């Protein structure tokens, strides 16, 4: 469960000027649900996701993950969250197995349990063939598989995806979409930001549309279609247009 209440985030200071990235954002995302966070560039999506995953601290407001406050209990929150974005890098000089071992250890897994988890993930994502190859030698698709495996190495109940398919080819994007669907079936809480309406249509149970740090729509995709028609791109443009 993710609960965001009146979240505000202001960047910068006297030197570079102040930018209000989030202005009182509130929404909730339940287990077994995929919540899509939509918004144009600079709307505040990445800031919101980074606050939830504890990379950033909110200026005010509250973000709670599985009952844990991201500001007061960041370490505990991190143990419960898996974060993935399209441009998350891998250590090129390490093999896929070494990357997974490293992150497994950082999340407290050790010895046989860690090895068993890596074997399991290798099987699930079909990585056996390249598990011992250095990441710098892997294709984009292979890399993204390793990245997903890294994200879930500690079996997090909450998954945060920040534009995970941005810039990826169709096959790799499909693999990620499949993985998000699987997370939903496993009753994880999935928060997902994207620009691609087709993905929203296939994956999201509910969507929140934000613009300039404020939430302008929050509801199910069915409600969205009922209100604005079947063309979700058009619906998005209309909502953002009304907000501006």
């Amino acid at each position: 469960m993710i609960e965001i209440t009146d979240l505000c985030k202001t960047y910068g200071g006297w030197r570079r000027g102040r930018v209000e990235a989030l202005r009182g954002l509130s929404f909730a995302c339940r287990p077994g649900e995929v919540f899509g966070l939509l918004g144009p560039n600079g709307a505040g999506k990445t800031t919101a996701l980074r606050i939830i995953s504890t990379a950033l601290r909110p200026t005010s407001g509250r973000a709670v993950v599985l009952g844990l406050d991201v500001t007061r209990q960041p370490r505990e929150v991190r143990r419960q969250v898996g974060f993935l974005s399209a441009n998350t890098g891998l250590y090129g000089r390490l093999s896929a197995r070494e990357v997974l071992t490293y992150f497994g250890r950082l999340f407290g897994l050790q010895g046989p349990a860690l090895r068993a988890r890596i074997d399991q993930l290798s099987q699930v994502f079909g990585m056996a063939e390249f598990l011992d190859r250095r990441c710098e030698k892997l294709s984009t698709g292979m890399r993204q598989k390793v990245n997903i495996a890294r994200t879930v190495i500690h079996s997090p109940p909450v998954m945060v995806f920040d534009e995970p398919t941005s810039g990826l080819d169709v096959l790799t994007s499909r693999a990620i979409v499949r993985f998000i669907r699987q997370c939903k079936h496993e009753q994880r809480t999935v928060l997902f930001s994207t620009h691609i309406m087709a993905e929203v249509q296939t994956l999201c149970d509910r969507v929140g549309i934000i613009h300039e740090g404020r939430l302008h729509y929050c509801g199910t995709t069915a409600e969205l279609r009922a209100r604005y028609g079947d063309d979700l791109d058009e619906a998005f443009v209309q909502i953002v247009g009304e907000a501006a």
Partner: protein
Amino acid sequence: MLAGVWTIYRKELVDTLRDRKTLIFMLLIPTLAIPAMFAALEKIVSSSTQKQALERVRIAADEPSRARYRQLVHAWFLQSPLADGLRIATSPVMRSLIDPAQLGALGEIPPEIFTDPAVFAAWTRAAAAKAREGVDSGEGPPADVHLPPEMVHEVVAFYEVAFKGLGLIEFVDPGSLTMSAAPVETLPRALAGDAPARAAASAIKAKTIHGYLIAPEQAAEAARAGPTVELTLLHDSTLRLSEEARRRVQTVLERVNERLVQARLRARDLDRDFLTPLRMRDGMDLATESQIALSYIGGILPYFVIAFAFLGGMYPAIDLGAGEKERNTLETLILSPSTRAEIAIGKFLVITTTALTAAVAGLASIAISVRYVAPPALLRNFDLNIEPATAVMIGLLAIPPAVAFAGLFLAISIYARSFKEAQNYMAPLQFVLILPALAPMLPGLELNWKMALIPLVNVSMLSKDFLKGDTHWGYYALTLFSCGVLAAGCVAYAVRQFHREDVLFRS
């Protein structure tokens, strides 16, 4: 905490060691560049020394001056114990026994060399030419021939006076020199009215000759007691061969003087001590030859310690901080349950390891180069004997700078936006950080309690004392402490940077 640091340390070390750039700077440059540098230096020094030693110089001199100069050298030769040896070698009995080929550069020895200075000069010329062809090194007896020290002195003197001072000088008639249009303005006033001197000056500047010799009439009678006779050698000390000409004639005069003074003293029944009423007693130095040598090296050693630690730490630091930002891997790391302090300390320890390894590898390489690669010409006067304990102490010296650099570099690297920006910050730092390495070269500067608190300066000063065998553990502890405090401050700063969102996510 420890488990987290250890996990990060282990991974970062493996990652760093797989980076070719790091390996080049950490191990390859210190271990291979030093012996290569020493070997190249040796080759350059020895080949240029040998080349210069056997090079022929052209000196203009009129016939009387030439004859007087020849006579001086010949007279010196006749009084040399070597002349007696050569006389025996040229006796009919010995001539039937000795194969001239066995005499090396000396070759065929005409008996007239003892009576005719001109024949003597021609023979030295032929012998020197043979030496130039490589029959003889021209630098004295071969290393495997063991002669008593007085004899070695005589042989060296013979090479200097007969070979280099006469055989390898080609005399030129001043009349053959053509005067250039522009007169040489620096011609000494005493020679201004001398037309051949003016022509010679132009020729020296034009490098067609290397000197102009005037030996006055009295030179031939210098053996007799009388006022000092001055020989003139016009030369240009900024031109290599002209300076070589001056050095050769000067050496001849010194050797001739030595013998003439001895003869004069003998004639008056005086001992050589007559000329030296007082002198310092030799062999009263408490330092061993090895200690003296190490004390010299102690002056330059800190430079290498600091430079290698710098090189060994810089690239891993850039890679572990700014590099991680550039590759978009930092975010995943800070989203793990590790604290920012664990991440910073883990990375700091890896940089310390590489800086330390580079410094120790560099020092070991220097030690090996000095012992096995360094040329006798370069370290001929040093009787180096680095004991294991001294080697360990020198190794300990690398710890404080490695620690200090690791902290400093990590802070800079985390702050920097990109690999390039980090490089831009660190490159000028190199000059600032190398400055403390010069401290031991400043005269009158001794390590004290206050100085032991100045990071890096203390390392430089301490190295000199360590090498002399003057180990002051109190100063070492203070040095480690001060560098440790600097590093701790820098690591704390790096941890703070890890908490700053504008630093972590700026691009």
